[in-house]
């Protein structure tokens, strides 16, 4: 892992800080000279995103090609809409094995250990923002569990 690179992104990882255009409200993770949406040159404001979001799309992805077992390195990723901003992230490992279909399931952004930092590794531990089923979405969680039994 690149420790310095991870440190640079700590504001997003810890507080979900993004840059907000004061003119049009466009949110971004990266700094730009002009807002890509309204072209405003007014300085972007820092803002912490809420943790709750809605799933717009999901995928079950991984480098399966050479292993062919459909399980190794399996990653479930979702595209979340949080306060009008689209964010793509992985689903937290502890949750993902149960999920079949996450469409429209309310999810919550959390900080979790990345796979690139396996237990026992001598390297620094890397954390990243991931999604997990929202605790307020109990009925949906029940539905997800039911789906996974099919």
């Amino acid at each position, binding site marked *: 892992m690149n420790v310095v*690179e991870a440190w640079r*992104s700590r504001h997003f990882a810890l507080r979900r800080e993004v840059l907000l255009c004061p003119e049009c409200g466009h949110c971004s993770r990266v700094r730009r000279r002009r807002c890509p949406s309204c072209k405003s040159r007014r300085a972007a404001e820092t803002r912490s995103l809420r943790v709750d979001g809605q799933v717009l799309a999901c995928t*079950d992805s991984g*480098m*399966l*090609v050479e292993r062919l077992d459909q399980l190794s390195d399996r990653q479930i990723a979702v595209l979340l809409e949080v306060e009008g901003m689209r964010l793509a*992230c992985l689903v937290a490992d502890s949750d993902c094995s149960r999920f079949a279909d996450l*469409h429209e399931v309310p999810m919550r952004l959390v900080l979790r250990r990345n796979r*690139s930092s396996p237990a026992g590794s001598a390297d620094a531990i890397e954390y*990243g923002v991931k999604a997990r089923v929202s605790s307020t979405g109990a009925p949906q969680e029940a539905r997800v569990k039911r789906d996974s039994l099919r």
Partner: protein
Amino acid sequence: MNQVAVVATSSLQSANHWGQSLADLALDVAEPLLDRAEPDGLFCASTSRAPGSMARGTSVVIADRLALPTTSRVYGFDDGDATGAAALHTAVAHIQAGLVKTALVVGVAKVSDLSEPDRYRTLDEALDRDAEVGTELTYLTHCGLLADLYLRRYGLNASALGHLVSHNLRNALSSGATQLKLAPSAAEVRKDVKVASPLTRSDFAPLLDGAVAILLSDTKVAWDLGDAPLEVLGISAARDTAVVWERGDPLCLSAVQTASSRALAQAHSSLAATRLLQIENACSLMEVLSLETLGVTRPGQTLSGYADGFGLIGGLPTINSCGGAIGRGHVLGAGGLAQVHDVMLAFTGGGCSRSAEALAESALCVSFSAFASTAFATVLGRMKK
């Protein structure tokens, strides 16, 4: 301003060329063109981040292997999938400005030293690293999310995606651009290994070794150097927000639209008059989004169109006469040059089953990197004596 012509093209079939280095591939592909003219400019497209390539200085090494004159201008390009098109457009601009008389553009990739997962990891370099720190998302994952978003927006079944892949493989088979003996059906394509649901391995072009070379000159000397030169009628490029999810609509490739319309306007042509389109398809979904953004097909109806035989060789328009990267194999960084080679074959009746394209007067090539954060459009036309 000088007018520019594509004098001749050369290509190596995409495959695992185990016994050849990157420079060997470049030498093999360029040698037939060097017999026609001694270029005074080399524009070399090779993605240096692909492990197995020579990283920095590739263009200088290739210029050395080709034994170009010491006074030659040598340029190297590295811009992901769009590298070949970037090199081509720069070479055209140099001839237009009179800085170079004859330009050799070479696109080359060497990936056979890598495992398949490592080959696909080279595509991750196209992502905006600042926005991806700590996410562990790959190019394939983003493609899967984009495909899921597309299917849900238009209420389509994932099985529809198979028609596009099947279409490209059928065109590749008809034109002899693939080593396949049989083009699989859409249903067979969908049975392939899932890579990023709903996308299967077949939805991603196989990353292979390969090389493409193009000889460019002023149109005044084009007939002296080539047998059936093509005129470069228009070139244009455009860009979009690098982070696909920060765009107004992630399913709209505005850079593709802008670059294409400007290139067609330069050529005094229109999309309706263009019978042959070569569209970048490192991932099948990007071809769908390109066609829908351009207005060639209506939103959500491209896949059903392919199921009905739209875009096959002989159709109007023909889409990807050699199957694009999915059909012929993806030579990372040389895709834009391979499209020009395909147009040259189509216009000269090379290969087989190309009678319809042989009647075409102009062709549009659209090349872009990853999610079309940069796009290059080139309009080529038959050159009259």
